Every structure is written in C-alpha cells, then in structure tokens.
C-alpha cells in the first residue's frame, strides 16, 4: 500500500512541476525570442510579465468551445489527451535526481526501450486529431506529422541503442552512472563527448519528434493553416500546446540523461538534493537551445526533411552502431 501511495505522491508532484514548467516555459520562450529579435516581449501582466501564463490560461478557459459538426466526436476529444499522456508517462523512467527517490519506476531495466515505445505512441494523438477534425488541412497535417515522427523515431532509436550499447544497460539509472567512469574526469565522461554522432542524431531527431522549428511542417501555417490543430480551440488547443511543451521538456530531460550525464555534478554524493538542481539546470539549457534554434533557423522543405530522415540519419545511425560495437568488442579505451 505504501508503494502505491508513494507512487501517487510522486506522480502528483511531477505533474505539478511539469504544468508550472510548461506554463513558464511558454513565457520564457516568448521573452527569449523577443530578446533575440531585439524586442521586449510580454511585460504587462504582473512584474516582468510573470503573470502572463495565468492570464493566458484564464483566456483559454473562458473561450467558446467550438466543435466542428462533421468531426468524429469521441476521437476529436480523445486526440489532445493522447498527445499529452505519452509525454507525461515518459517521465516515469527518467531519473531526475540521485537514487530511487527521484524516479518513479527506478527499477525498470528496459527503460530506454520504454522511451522508444512511448515516443512511438505519441504519433497517435497528432494523427487522430487531424483525422477526427474532418478537415483536409488537418488530415494532411496529421499524415505529415505521423510520417515525420515515424521517420525520425528510427534515427532516435538508433541513437538510443548506441547509448544502451555504451552503457551495456537499458536502465536509465545505469546509463547515467555509466557516464562517470573513474578514468574520465567529470564532464568528459558524458556521452555527448564519447558519442558525438549519436548525440547529434538524437538532437536532430528531437526537433522532428517535437515538431518544432525548423521541423514544424506539421503546422506550417502557409501551407496547412495550423495543420492538425486547425479545428481545435480553447482548452483543447491548450492541451495540444501543453503536449508540445511537455514533450519538449521530456525530450530535453532525455537528452540530459542520455548525453549530459543526467543528474550528476559536483558534491552530489554529499548533498543529494543538488542532483535535482543539476538536472534541472541541464534541462533548462537544452530548452533554451530549442528556443534559440526556433528563433534562428527557417523551416525545412518537407521532402528534404523526409530525405534527411531516411537517407542521412538512418545510414549514419546504423554505421555509428556498427563502429561503436566494433570499438567495444575490440576493447578500445573509453568504449569497453
């Protein structure tokens, strides 16, 4: 019984953190982009615009909820949920701090595979949202989204497989601790430095998974109005919005775990709570990179996107796995 209680409490805490995180991430993004574009950004609600998310929330809640007549109702309502849930569930296996205290399913020895599985489930929400709206732009957006996500899942899966190979374990906790072998002083043990190719593939795939610029073809307003979200408004739109940001956080957390040494940092052994701080810091850096890229790069053409997924990411990822496996088999220092 205690186990269930603990899990429930942890889940609630996690959801609260994520929801606030999502709300303020939207604010951060708007402010950050504004700075990058030499603007000021939202600054009306509250000091420095800190209450903007609250104001947004109130606006969205009180908006009239319009449902298209031809929409397939159950799925129309189900789709936004399907977008948010896998992103939330992903956090179950991510160790946000040192030890089992800071992880929901700490003993899951197939954690990395679980990540891949959840990523693949995430496609449904987008696709079904497009289909259920009964709108051709939405359907096209949905189809584009699913095709894009499936293509980039392969690259991401290969990158994760390389990491699993390096750590010789599929448990995320093991992966984090594998990035601190004795012979490497601190930061150099990160897989970011020992597996730069995998890290690059993962990063690119992450943009495609979250469908953000430069890979936001799914909602390319010039071509598809708002893509699969065209027919969604009010809170249902907010759910998609939330899904996107939670996914962004989740992917950043995963990148941190896989390549940036997770929660590790100086003095963690003495003060365990520091690990959560380190983890949060690293995730925030990743998120800022997301925003930075969005502000800098133009959108890619769709066929180029698909070409890159299948003809660059996949072969490179495969080659990387082979090379890594050979290096490990040969016992090369840093890989054995």
């Amino acid at each position: 019984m205690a186990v269930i209680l603990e899990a429930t409490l942890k889940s609630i805490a996690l959801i609260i953190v994520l929801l606030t995180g999502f709300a303020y991430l939207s604010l951060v993004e708007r402010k950050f982009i504004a700075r990058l574009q030499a603007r000021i950004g939202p600054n009306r609600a509250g000091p420095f615009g800190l209450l903007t998310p609250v104001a947004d929330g109130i606006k969205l809640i009180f908006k009239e909820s319009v449902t298209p007549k031809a929409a397939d109702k159950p799925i129309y309502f189900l789709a936004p949920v399907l977008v948010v849930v896998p992103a939330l569930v992903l956090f179950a296996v991510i160790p946000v701090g040192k030890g089992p205290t800071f992880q929901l399913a700490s003993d899951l020895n197939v954690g990395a595979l679980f990540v891949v599985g959840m990523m693949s489930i995430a496609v449904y929400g987008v696709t079904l949202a497009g289909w259920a709206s009964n709108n051709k732009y939405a359907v096209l957006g949905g189809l584009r989204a699913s095709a894009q996500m499936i293509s980039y899942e392969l690259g991401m899966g290969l990158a994760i497989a390389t990491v699993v190979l390096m750590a010789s374990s599929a448990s995320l906790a093991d992966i984090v601790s594998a990035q601190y072998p004795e012979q490497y002083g601190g930061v150099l043990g990160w897989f970011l430095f020992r597996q730069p190719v995998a890290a690059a593939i993962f990063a690119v795939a992450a943009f495609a998974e979250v469908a953000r610029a430069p890979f936001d073809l799914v909602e390319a307003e010039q071509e598809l109005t708002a893509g699969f979200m065209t027919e969604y408004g009010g809170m249902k739109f907010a759910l998609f919005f939330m899904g996107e940001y939670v996914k962004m956080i989740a992917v950043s957390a995963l990148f941190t775990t896989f390549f940036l040494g997770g929660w590790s940092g100086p003095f963690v052994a003495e003060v365990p709570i520091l690990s959560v701080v380190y983890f949060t810091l690293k995730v925030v850096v990743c998120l800022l990179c997301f925003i930075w890229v969005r502000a800098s790069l133009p959108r890619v053409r769709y066929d180029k996107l698909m070409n890159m997924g299948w003809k660059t990411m996949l072969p490179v990822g495969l080659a990387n796995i082979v090379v890594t496996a050979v290096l490990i088999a040969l016992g090369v220092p840093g890989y054995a």
Partner: protein
Amino acid sequence: MSDLVILILLGALSVASALGLLLSQNAIYAALFLVLNFIIGAVIFLVLNAPFLAVVQISVYAGAIMVLFVFVIMLLGAERLAPTENPPGLNYQRPLAVTLGVALLLLSAYVLFVRPSTSVVMTQPVDTSPQAVGIQLFTTYAFPFEVVSLLLLAAMIGAVVLTRKTE
C-alpha cells in the same frame, strides 16, 4: 493472488477491447481498440515477468504496426465499413462460424479447467532482463534470428515493389 486479480481486471479490459474491435463499424475505431488491446497485452506481459516483450509489444505493435494500419486506413479513406451483409451463398457463414467459435472456447475451457492438469513444477523465476534475452537471441536462437532478419528484408522489398506505381 494479487497477480491474479490484476490479471482478471486486465483480462476483462482486454476482452472488452477485442469485442470493440469485432463490433465497431469504423476502421479507425477498430484500430484504436486493437491498440488498446495491445497495450493491455503489454501490461499483462509485465505482470507475467516479461518486461522486454512488454516494451517491444508497445513499440512494435502499438507504435509501428498499428500506426501503419491507421495510416493506410486514412490514406485509403476506408474507415467507413459497410454493414456486414453476406453475398449470396454465404448465409451459412455466420451461424456456423459462431457455433464453431463457441465450440473452440468450450474445448479450451474444458482442457484448462475441467480436466485435471498434469502438474508442472514451476522452477525458479528466470532472468528476463534484456541482457538475458539478448544472450539467448544471439546464441541459442542465432540462426532463427538471422532467418528472421532475411524475412524482414524480403518483406521490405516486397512491400516496396507491390506499392510502386508503374509508369
């Protein structure tokens, strides 16, 4: 015993989703019911000490195979299924099929619950970690593994050739 309770709950859900698949008039719904069924199946795998298969089930069945189904259904616009009416000369199909299905169910129930089962001693729980599965896969089952990889290649080429548009 708690395992059994969980399993019965999951089983009920599983059967319900399967019936949903059987009875739905919309292919997308059917596909979603099937996805649900697969995810429940994955949880059952977890309960039965098969975590590796559980996640593979999710990523392969739910994440890849069923996405493909949904994709094809949407692509063809084939979601509206005509009501099940039999072509002439096929009227016997439904009653016979149902009868046989019930017979099959009764037979398996008889075997499982009525007949005294030959006692099988359960040995120690085995190591079902990905490592253990991987080692088995690359030693004992290395040959089938290679064969299956060839099969996948053949299927891939077959699918490409079949759907290629001829000029």
